[in-house]
């Protein structure tokens, strides 16, 4: 039966499992991936570590208190994106209707496969089997008639499981869940609903939309009421073409030193340029994001007549954008550089007069890195710099 055509596939403790692929000694012990500095937060925790109460986004210091004996590993985002690409390749070989939500989760609409498989559960079993056999990674899958329920089901299927919510049991399953698990219910809404005596998703469905609207406003009330009643018409929208690519890092202590900031901007641009080229894109818009010590976040962006994908070009724009930011004599807590208005490889591209040397350089460094790894070559200005702080998200 294909009356539950939506799969939500979520990799289990993805960063941790990738680390375990590369280092067998991490198997079977608590593992925490996250920024190792004072301000680091947990990016991923293995199921062993979760038993000690450690969860994602928790400050690292707190995690260390809860689970002192865990193995702590700094994140390697480029490695995770690499593996993520392979995971998504499997998704796309199953169906073109893949909507990625992040590096490690996606919706798949498998309704087009009705002639090849008996039912969508069979497809889900196949997807899990291939991820396990080809990549040696665990994934959990929720199979349901709607996106919301598929996502809820994959959460309940974890770890390394599969949960099928048939149409006939949709409301029964959904409405027994606590209201907090409904999409769009954050802390504030949750507290408000609790004041109402609302505990389960079913409680929301039982209220009249008008009562709900008096507290939440009409739009939010209608939306939540529809979802709680099992109505979720959103379809899987495949997002093959990336819309933007960015790199950012949060620093252990605020950056003040100009030379250091300059170097970090360069390091970001180098990484961003590399990722752009790898994905086969060039960017017409560059965005700089700076979060100051007091958490003020400033972004500046600039658009170009012709797309760029080499470090030097990104860098000159990023530095100019940086010069327009008033730091108010504060240090920098977070620095991010993004590329948007992406133009795919193969699109005619206006070349720059002095661009060919830089293009050739980029092509050469890409080849070296493909062969000897991403640290094999880089800008000389970064050579003696301490390892740039890894991004935490």
């Amino acid at each position: 039966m294909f009356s539950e055509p939506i799969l939500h596939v979520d990799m289990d403790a993805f960063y941790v499992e990738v680390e375990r692929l590369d280092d067998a000694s991490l198997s079977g012990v608590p593992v925490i991936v996250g920024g190792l500095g004072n301000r680091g937060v947990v990016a991923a925790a293995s199921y062993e570590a979760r038993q000690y109460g450690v969860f994602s986004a928790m400050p690292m210091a707190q995690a260390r208190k809860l689970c002192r004996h865990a193995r702590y590993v700094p994140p390697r985002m480029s490695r995770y994106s690499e593996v993520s690409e392979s995971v998504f390749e499997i998704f796309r070989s199953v169906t073109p209707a893949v909507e990625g939500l992040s590096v490690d989760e996606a919706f798949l609409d498998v309704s087009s496969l009705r002639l090849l498989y008996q039912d969508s559960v069979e497809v889900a079993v196949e997807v899990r089997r291939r991820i396990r056999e080809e990549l040696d990674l665990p994934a959990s899958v929720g199979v349901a008639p709607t996106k919301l329920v598929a996502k809820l089901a994959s959460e309940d299927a974890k770890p390394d499981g599969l949960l099928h919510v048939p149409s006939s049991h949709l409301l029964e399953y959904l409405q027994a869940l606590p209201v907090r698990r409904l999409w769009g219910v954050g802390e504030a809404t949750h507290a408000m609903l609790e004041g109402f005596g609302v505990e389960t998703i079913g409680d929301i469905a039982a209220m009249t939309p008008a009562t709900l609207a008096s507290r939440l406003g009409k739009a939010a009330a209608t939306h939540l009421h529809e979802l709680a009643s099992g109505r979720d018409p959103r379809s899987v929208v495949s997002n093959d073409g990336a819309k933007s690519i960015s790199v950012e890092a949060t620093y252990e202590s605020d950056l003040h030193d100009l030379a250091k900031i300059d170097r970090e901007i360069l390091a970001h641009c180098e990484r961003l340029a590399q990722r752009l080229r790898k994905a086969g894109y060039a960017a017409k818009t560059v965005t700089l994001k700076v979060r100051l010590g007091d958490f003020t976040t400033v972004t500046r962006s600039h658009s170009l007549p012709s797309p760029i994908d080499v470090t030097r070009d990104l860098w000159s724009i990023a530095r100019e954008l940086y010069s327009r930011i008033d730091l108010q004599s504060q240090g920098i807590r977070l620095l991010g550089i993004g590329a948007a208005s992406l133009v795919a490889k193969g699109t005619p591209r206006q070349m720059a007069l002095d661009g060919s040397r830089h293009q050739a350089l980029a092509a050469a460094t890409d080849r070296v890195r493909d062969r000897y790894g991403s640290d094999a070559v880089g800008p000389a200005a970064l050579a003696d710099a301490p390892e740039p702080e890894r991004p935490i998200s």
Partner: protein
Amino acid sequence: MKIRAERDDLADVLARAARAVTTRSPLPILQGVLCVVEGGTLTVTGTDLEVTIRTTLEVEVLEEGRTVIPARLASEAVRKLPAGAVSIHAREGEVEITGNGPRFRLRELNIDDFPQISEPDTVGGSSVDGPAFLKALSQVGIAASTDEARPILTGVLFEAESDHLRLVATDSYRLADRILPGVITDASGLVPYRALKELSRAIGDPKLTVRFGDRDAVFSSDRGTLQVRLIEGTFPNVSQLFPDSYPYQLKASRAELLEAVGRASLVAEDHIPVRFGLHTGGVELSVTRQEVGDETEHINADYNGDEMTIAFNTKYLSDGLNAIDEDDVVLETADPLKPGLLRGAESEDFRYLLMPVRL
């Protein structure tokens, strides 16, 4: 301060100085022009702190003095008065502008707030033929960038060489290079093109004087002075951008090419280039835009070289063709990924280097 002058003359000096005034200035005082009356002369100064324009006019002086008046409003007010004599009278915080009946009373701006524009640190100076100089500037100016994120590329480079002055501008996609034979100066520096664009209207005259200092360039004529802060930084090393040699050469009628590119650009848009199929006998132009359609045509011309297809941005190409003032143009190329050189068939004083679009 009290003066009287002909409406048209007064409107003219006010409006020309006001060209340096930006409407977006964060400092309210910069919305004003400074008027100083000394001897028999009115001097009007407008500035945005980078570009300063001073204009002068012989006037009937009833009372010397100085005032700052709102630039646009005052010059428009004068212009819209009936023809004939107009008088400006500043006293007690008000400026009265009258002429043949109508009377404006405008609030004076605080003269103490008006910035002191330091005298330019220039020495010497050389005299140039105004129209020829302005024309050369507009020829190279088309290649200057308007992208404030790359300030260096928004300038025109002045380079004094032994027996000529060289002007260069590039936005990194194309480069315009013009020499002015016989113009001997010590002018060297990078001048914002947005200031040079104002020269013609602000102080254009048959004779211009050009002076350069470490920080400023000053252009002056009998009609006034334009002083501009030079752009700091190193301009790209231009000479290395020109290929050593061009094996292939197309010679065609400028008007025919320009018209053809104009037709192609109807279909092309933004990043869609026009393709030049070069072959003995001429050039086959074609442009295709998937969702719209295409256009093709053939131009008879002399072509020496191997057959090849090279593609250009239509706007960059027509900018270059427009800047050349000869009937026939030459396009020199080496290969589809190297810059093409566009110039007049007779003279090499103006050269336009254009990077192709990679297909």
